[in-house]
């Protein structure tokens, strides 16, 4: 039942794609006695046009464009509808890895976590200050609003 339905659906989609998709229309016209001489030119034009389209969409996505552009690029690259957890791009709006240039902090507050391994009291205090200074510098550079601090002193692991 599922097989028959998917077969019928793909056949219907194939027909629609053949009838309405611009590339298919052009290819059908080229595959004629009079149109075949345009084949190499049309082929080269296709490579350029689709290449430019891919580069342009990629640029928009990299610059933080709308999610629809990301989804379109996913579809272009994979040929399938994107599945957010597995498609490897920020379809869900959260990037896995973000460079400093792409950074734009949200309004949500940030918390910090400091951990110091077991050591002498003086050394622990110095290490807490070191980590605190590093965190403060990063928060300042990234424009984060620090709210709470959590400190574990004397814990390894």
């Amino acid at each position: 039942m599922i097989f028959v339905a998917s077969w019928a659906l793909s056949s219907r989609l194939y027909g629609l794609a053949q009838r309405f998709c611009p590339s298919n229309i052009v290819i059908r016209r080229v595959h004629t006695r009079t149109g075949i001489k345009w084949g190499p030119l049309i082929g080269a034009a296709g490579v350029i046009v689709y290449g430019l389209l891919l580069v342009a969409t990629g640029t928009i996505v990299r610059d933080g464009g709308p999610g629809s552009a990301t989804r379109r690029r996913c579809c272009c690259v994979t040929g399938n509808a994107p599945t957010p957890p597995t498609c490897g791009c920020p379809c869900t709006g959260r990037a896995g890895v973000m460079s400093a240039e792409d950074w734009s902090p949200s309004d949500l507050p940030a918390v910090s976590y400091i951990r110091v391994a077991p050591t002498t009291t003086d050394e622990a205090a110095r290490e807490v200050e070191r980590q605190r200074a590093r965190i403060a510098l990063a928060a300042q550079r990234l424009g984060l609003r620090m709210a709470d601090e959590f400190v574990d002193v004397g814990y390894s692991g």
Partner: protein
Amino acid sequence: MSMGRPDLRRLLDHVAANQVGYCVVATRDRLSEDPEQAADIDQALDDALAAIVVAADNTGPAAN
């Protein structure tokens, strides 16, 4: 998740209960040096929609 660190537990409870965007640590290994435990903490923060920010990656070479 077994962690004998009271403030880390408090932090995870805090991000789960409140809206927190980021958890900033000086270096990645401050959360945990054990990869399995680090993955658990990562997952807990991710579930709370809080992103981990590693200060060492964001302070530039002059500060290191």
